[in-house]
C-alpha cells in the first residue's frame, strides 16, 4: 500500500463525470478544415515551413521552432494548405493568432514513419530528440515542451516520477477514458520517460472515483515496479503541487518546480503521446477530448485530430443549440468561457462543456465579505483568500503580495464555497496583473532613469573636459606671454653684453625662439581673434542663465509654498542653473582677462 499524505483545504464539487464515461471513446472523424495554431504550448511560436497550396502528408512537419523553446507542429491529416492567417485560437482573451489552415483531401495518407521497437539501444539524447520532433508538449494544461521538462537541471536528480491520472476537475474524463482504453500505451510511455530519468520511484496517482481506470492501469503495470496510488477524491488533488504532496509528503518550494525536490509530474495523455512517438513513430496529431454538458445529447469522449474546430466536435456530440448558454473550454473550476465555437482544439484541450443556463447558472450578485473563512478552509495553498480579496479590492497590492498572492494557483475552490458569491479568483487575477504591470513599468522607468543619468554624466564629463582643454590653452598662452616678457628682459640685460658675437648669437636665438613661439601661437587658435567676439555671446549666455535661474528659483519657492511633490526636482534644477550661471560668469571673466592681455600684448609689440 502506498503511503499517502493529505493536502489542506480542498472541496468536493459534484463530479458530473458519469455523463461522459457511459460511452466508449468515439472517433470524431474528419472536419472540413483543420486549423493548426503555430503556438500550442508555452514558449516560442513555430515558424511555418510550408506554402499555401502545398500538399502535405499526415504527420508531416509543417512548422517548427528554430530558436528558443518550443516544439514543431505537424499536419493532422493529408491535404492542401489553404491559408496561413490569423484565426481565433483557444485563449481566455479570445485573441487571434497565426494558424495554418489545412483542407483535408480525404485520403489520410501518412508520411514515412520510423517506429522504434527497442529504444533501450538508443542513447537518451536521441530519444529526447524524437519526443521533441513528435511535437509533444504537456497535455494536462499549460503545455510545457515535454523534452525540455524531461531534462531537469543537472543537479536536480528526479527521484520520483509521478504520472498524474488524478483528473480532479468535475466533468472531465479524457484521462480516465484514456487509461481505461489505452492503459498499455500509457504505461509504455511512462516506461520511456522513466528510462530517460532513472527515478528510484515511479507512481501513478489516480482518484478513487475511477475504478475502471485503476483496474486497467493495475493490469498494465503487472510485472513492473510502477506503483498505482489510489488517492481520495478531493479537488484539486490533480494540481501538480497537491499531487506531489499527496504522493510524497513534500511541498514544492514557492516559486520553484517539483524537480527542485526531486519530483516530476507527467500527464496521462503525454505518456500516451510519448508511446506513440517512439513505438509507432507518430507525432502528436490527435488527442482525446471530453464533450459534455446538458446542451449536448450524446456526451462522451472523442479522439480528435489536432486542429478540429470546436463547432465540429459539438455537432458530433449532438449539440442542442437552443439549450446552449455557456461554452467552457476545460473544466468548470479552471476552464474559461469561449466567445465562439469557431476555434480549433489543440494539443492541450481536454474538455468542452456545453452548459445550459440551469447547469452552470450565473452567480447571484456579490455580497460583502463577512470573513467567514470558508475560503481559507477550502484553500489548498493555505492562503488567506479573504485577506487577499480585501487587499486586492482596495488595490493594496503590497499587502496582497506579502500574503503570498503569487502562490495562488487559481483553482477556484475559494470562489466555489464563498457564501457571498464573490468572484475571488477574478480579484486575484486582477491584482496579479496589476502587480506585473507595475513591475514592468518600474523596470521601464528604472531603465529610463539610468539612461538619463548616464547621459547627464556624459554631458558633465564632456563639459569638464572642455573646461580642462580651455584652461590648458589659457595656461599655454600665459606661459608664452611670460616667456616673451622674460626674453624681453633678457634682451635688455644681454644688450649690455660686451661680446658682440655672443650678443649676435643671442639675438639670432631670440629671433628663432620668437618665431617658434609665434608658430606655436598660430597653431593654436589665435586667442585674441577668436575670443574677442565671444565676449558678447558669453555675456548673452550669462544673462540668459541668470534669468533662467531666477525663474527656476521662483518656481521652486512657489512649489515649496504649496508643498508640491516636484520640489526636489526643482531644487536640482535650480542648483544646476546656479552652476551654469557660475560657469558662464567665470568664462566671461576669463575671456575678459584674456582680451585685456591680448590688447596689452598688441600694444607692447
Amino acid at each position: 500500500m502506498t503511503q499517502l499524505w493529505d493536502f489542506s483545504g480542498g472541496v468536493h464539487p459534484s463530479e458530473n463525470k458519469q455523463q461522459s464515461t457511459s460511452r466508449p471513446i468515439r472517433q470524431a472523424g474528419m472536419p472540413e478544415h483543420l486549423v493548426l495554431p503555430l503556438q500550442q504550448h508555452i514558449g516560442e511560436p513555430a515558424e511555418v515551413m510550408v506554402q499555401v497550396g502545398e500538399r502535405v502528408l499526415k504527420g508531416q512537419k509543417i512548422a517548427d521552432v528554430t530558436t528558443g523553446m518550443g516544439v514543431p507542429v505537424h499536419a493532422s491529416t493529408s491535404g492542401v494548405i489553404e491559408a496561413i492567417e490569423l484565426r481565433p485560437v483557444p485563449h481566455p482573451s479570445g485573441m487571434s493568432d497565426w494558424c495554418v489552415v489545412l483542407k483535408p483531401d480525404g485520403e489520410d495518407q501518412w508520411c514515412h514513419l520510423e517506429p522504434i521497437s527497442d529504444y533501450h539501444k538508443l542513447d537518451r539524447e536521441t530519444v529526447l530528440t524524437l519526443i521533441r520532433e513528435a511535437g509533444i508538449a504537456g497535455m494536462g494544461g499549460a503545455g510545457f515542451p515535454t523534452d525540455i521538462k524531461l531534462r531537469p537541471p543537472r543537479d536536480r536528480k528526479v527521484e520520483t516520477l509521478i504520472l498524474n491520472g488524478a483528473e480532479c476537475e468535475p466533468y472531465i474524463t479524457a484521462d480516465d477514458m484514456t487509461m481505461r482504453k489505452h492503459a498499455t500505451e500509457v504505461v509504455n510511455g511512462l516506461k520511456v520517460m522513466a528510462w530517460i530519468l532513472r527515478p528510484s520511484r515511479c507512481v501513478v496517482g489516480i482518484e478513487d472515483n475511477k475504478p475502471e481506470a485503476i483496474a486497467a492501469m493495475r493490469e498494465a503495470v503487472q510485472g513492473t515496479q510502477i506503483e498505482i496510488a489510489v488517492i481520495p477524491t478531493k479537488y484539486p488533488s490533480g494540481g501538480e503541487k497537491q499531487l506531489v504532496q499527496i504522493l510524497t509528503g513534500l511541498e514544492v518550494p514557492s516559486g520553484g518546480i517539483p524537480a527542485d525536490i526531486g519530483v516530476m509530474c507527467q500527464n496521462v495523455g503525454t505518456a500516451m503521446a510519448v508511446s506513440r512517438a517512439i513505438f509507432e513513430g507518430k507525432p502528436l496529431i490527435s488527442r482525446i477530448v471530453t464533450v459534455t454538458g446538458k446542451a449536448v445529447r450524446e456526451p462522451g469522449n472523442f479522439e480528435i485530430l489536432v486542429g478540429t474546430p470546436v463547432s465540429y466536435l459539438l455537432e458530433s456530440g449532438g449539440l442542442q443549440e437552443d439549450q446552449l448558454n455557456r461554452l467552457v473550454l476545460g473544466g468548470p473550476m479552471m476552464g474559461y468561457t469561449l466567445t465562439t465555437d469557431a476555434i480549433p482544439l489543440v494539443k492541450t484541450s481536454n474538455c468542452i462543456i456545453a452548459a445550459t443556463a440551469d447547469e452552470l447558472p450565473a452567480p447571484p450578485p456579490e455580497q460583502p465579505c463577512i470573513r467567514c473563512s470558508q475560503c481559507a478552509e477550502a484553500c489548498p495553498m493555505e492562503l488567506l483568500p479573504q485577506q487577499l480579496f480585501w487587499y486586492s479590492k482596495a488595490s493594496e497590492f503590497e499587502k496582497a503580495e506579502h500574503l503570498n498572492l503569487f502562490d495562488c494557483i487559481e483553482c477556484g475552490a475559494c470562489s466555489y464555497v464563498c457564501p457571498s458569491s464573490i468572484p475571488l479568483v477574478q480579484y486575484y487575477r486582477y491584482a496579479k496583473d496589476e502587480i506585473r504591470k507595475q513591475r514592468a513599468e518600474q523596470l521601464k522607468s528604472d531603465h529610463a532613469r539610468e539612461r538619463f543619468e548616464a547621459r547627464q554624466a556624459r554631458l558633465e564629463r564632456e563639459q569638464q573636459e572642455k573646461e580642462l582643454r580651455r584652461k590648458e590653452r589659457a595656461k599655454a598662452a600665459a606661459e608664452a606671454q611670460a616667456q616673451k616678457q622674460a626674453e624681453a628682459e633678457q634682451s635688455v640685460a644681454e644688450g649690455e653684453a660686451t661680446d658682440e658675437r655672443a650678443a649676435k648669437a643671442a639675438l639670432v636665438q631670440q629671433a628663432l625662439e620668437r618665431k617658434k613661439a609665434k608658430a606655436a601661437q598660430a597653431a593654436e587658435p589665435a586667442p585674441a581673434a577668436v575670443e574677442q567676439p565671444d565676449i558678447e555671446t558669453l555675456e548673452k549666455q550669462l544673462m540668459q542663465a541668470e534669468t533662467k535661474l531666477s525663474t527656476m528659483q521662483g518656481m521652486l519657492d512657489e512649489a515649496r509654498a504649496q508643498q508640491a511633490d516636484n520640489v526636489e526636482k526643482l531644487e536640482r534644477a535650480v542648483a544646476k542653473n546656479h552652476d551654469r550661471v557660475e560657469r558662464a560668469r567665470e568664462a566671461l571673466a576669463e575671456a575678459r582677462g584674456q582680451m585685456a592681455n591680448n590688447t596689452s600684448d598688441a600694444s607692447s609689440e
Partner: protein
Amino acid sequence: MALVQQSSPHARNARPTSRVMLWVILAAIPGLIAQTLFFGWGNLINVVWCIALALASEAAILKLRGKPISFFLKDNTAAVTGLLLGLSLPQFAPWWVSAIAVISAIVVAKQLYGGLGSNPFNPAMVGYALALISFPVAMTTNWAGAATLWGGAPGLVETLTTIFSGSQTTIDAWTMATPLDEYKHKIATHTAAEVLQHPTFGDLVARGWEWVNLAFLAGGLLLIWLRIITWHIPVAFLAAIVVMSLAFGSNADLYAPLQLHLLAGGTMLGAFFIATDPVSAATSHQGKLIYGAGIGVLVYLIRTWGNYPDAIAFSVLLMNFAVPFIDHYTPPRTYGHHKARRGVPSKSGG
C-alpha cells in the same frame, strides 16, 4: 449564439450568507427554549422585539445610505444581531433599554462603519455594553429567577406589561441576582458552602442556567458540525477559562468555582454564538485561538476581579480591538514556504 462570458470557476456550491445566518438562528433555538422554560417569556419577548427593531433600523439606515434594502435585509445578519441581544439581555429589561441596545448596535456599530462586513466591533456586544454602562440598574436588577423556584414563571401578559409599561412592581417577586453576581458579592463575607445555600444555585450548578448553557453548547456543536464556525474560538475561549480558574481560582471560598464559570452566565452563548462573529473576529486558525483565549482570559479577569459579574461583552470588544494586530502576526504558513510571513510588508517592498 450569445454565449455567457464568465470568469472561472463556473461551478459554485456555496451556502449563501442568508442561509448561514439562518442556521445560526436555528442553532440558537434550543437555548431560547431552555431560557423560556426556566425563566419565562422574557427572553422570547426580547428576541422578537429585538429582531423586529433590528430589521426596522437596518431598513431605515439602508434607505438613508441609498442601499438596496431588501437585498441586505435578506442576508439575515440584522436578525442575528437582534437575536443575540434578545438572548443576552435581562428577561425583564424595559423595552427602551433593548431598543437603545439594538439601535446602537445596528445603526452605530454596524452601518455607520460601512455596513455588513466592515464593522470592527461585534454590533450586538456594542449595544449590550452601551446599555450596561448607561443603565446599570435596569441591566442588573431585571434578571428572572429560575421558574422552578416558584413553581412557574409570570405569564405572557404579565411579562409583556412589565417590559413595555415599565411598571416593575408586580415583577419584583420574580427577579433575582444572577448566580455569578450572587457568588461574587457573597463570597467576600461567607464561605462557599454558605453562599451555595442560596436558591439561585439549585442542586446542580446554577438553577436553570446550567440547562440554558448546555442548550447553547448543543447549538454551538451543531454549528461546528455544519462547518459554519470552526472549533478554534469556542475551544480556546473555554480552555482559557478552565486554565485561569484552575490556576488562580481553585479556592472556592475566595473565587467562583469552575463549573459556575462554565455553566452560569453567558459563557456558552458567548463562546459559540457571540465570539465567533466572523466579521469582527481574527482570521487564521492560530489567530482565532489567540482571539478566543484572549476573550476567555478577560472574561475570567473581569468576573473575578472586576466590577461586573459577567463580562462577555467587554471581553469580546476588547479583543475586537486586538484583531488587526493578531491578524498581522498569525498568517498561516503557505504551501511551499518555510515559515509564515508575519507582520506588515516593509516599505522598501520586496
